[in-house]
């Protein structure tokens, strides 16, 4: 099929097929190597370890090369940059696996059974939600298309709701899903649809602070805050509770926090009226100018 006389650009179909095959081959190679490593009973020596890492690196490079034909077209990777980028991605993935715990352990150890004690199911659930949250937030921050940003925001909100559940906060989790996903995100999508699309690629970032500067800012902030989070001597309680909190929240809102609660309702009313007034007045003026 790829060799038939196509009316389109001649080499494009063959290139797409080659890149697809590269993705497939890299997945097979990477998965096979990982499975072989996990289930082999032979003791791991330095040589097998180096071969394993090299095979994974090659698989990742082929995967990135193949993926480049379909996604990230604006960032064509080939030659030296491809290998450097692949090496960086490999290093990040390796460190991630190492810190996640137990993924690097079996590589150095000898049996698949070593994985099980390392990965607690609760940790895996937390990591799932954390990756979902941070991935969604990263998509929101770095996506070129504002619609994709909004959909990434959906994943960030859902991940945060999952984190709330993980923290034993059932009512805030449900409120998060109802208000953020059901309300705020729909509002944002409406605003995107009602306004003209800007943010084609040359106009994505603003002139004062472009994307690399923004990424550097994010790295500095994350590094500082995470260092503080891990180094500060927090006075944590011995056994956190997972009791349902709705009843306690209701009592707190109507006794201790009654005044802020009433203020919040007034703020919501003012916001409702204000939003209607702000959005409606301009529409009326433009319709008058049209008439």
């Amino acid at each position, binding site marked *: 099929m790829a060799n038939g006389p196509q009316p389109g650009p001649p080499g494009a179909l063959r290139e797409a097929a080659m890149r697809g095959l590269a993705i497939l081959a890299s997945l097979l190679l990477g998965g096979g190597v990982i499975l072989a490593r996990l289930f082999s009973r032979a003791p791991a020596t330095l040589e097998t370890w180096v071969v394993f890492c090299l095979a994974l690196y090659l698989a990742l490079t082929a995967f990135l090369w193949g993926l480049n034909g379909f996604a990230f077209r604006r960032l064509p990777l080939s030659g030296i940059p491809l290998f450097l980028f692949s090496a960086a991605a490999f290093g990040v993935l390796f460190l991630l696996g190492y810190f996640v715990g137990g993924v690097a352990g079996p590589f150095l150890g000898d049996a698949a059974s070593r994985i099980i004690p390392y990965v607690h199911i609760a940790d895996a659930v937390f990591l799932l939600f954390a990756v979902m949250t941070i991935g969604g*937030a990263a998509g929101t921050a770095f996506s070129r298309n504002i619609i994709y940003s909004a959909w990434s925001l959906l994943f960030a909100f859902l991940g945060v709701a999952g984190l709330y559940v993980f923290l034993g*906060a059932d009512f805030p989790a449900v409120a998060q899903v109802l208000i953020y996903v059901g309300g*705020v995100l729909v509002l944002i999508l409406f*605003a995107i649809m009602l306004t003209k699309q800007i943010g084609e690629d040359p106009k994505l*970032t603003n002139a004062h602070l472009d994307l690399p500067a923004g*990424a550097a800012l*994010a790295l500095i902030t994350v590094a500082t805050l995470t260092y503080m989070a891990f180094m500060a001597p927090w006075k944590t309680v011995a056994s956190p509770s997972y*009791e349902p909190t709705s009843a306690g929240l209701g009592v707190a809102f109507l006794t201790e926090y009654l005044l802020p609660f009433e203020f919040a309702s007034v703020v919501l009313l003012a916001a409702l009226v204000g939003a*209607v007034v*702000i959005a409606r007045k301009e529409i009326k003026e433009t319709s008058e100018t049209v008439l």
Partner: protein
Amino acid sequence: MSSIGLPHFLAVGAALFALGMVTVVTRRNAVGILMGVELILNAANVNFIAFNHFVEGPGRLTGQVFSIFVIVLAAAEAAIGLAIVLAIYQTFRTIDVEETDLLRE
């Protein structure tokens, strides 16, 4: 016994905050900037609830109460902010924040 503790949640909150800040400072689309603000508010909420869970202890709900207030204010902020964005769009026919630098039409 889970090994996930307070610092892990704070780290997630830090990442959310940083990414929201990047969204705010790099976007030119006003709706994108509002999305960044939502991310920042979510980061604050994660911290509130994590501290409530790990530091405040059982039976105390101050962190969750404040997270509800933050959610309420975020909803109000989104409604007002997006109404303002629509009003700006009606006036200037663009929501590029670098071009809407006049306080009059």
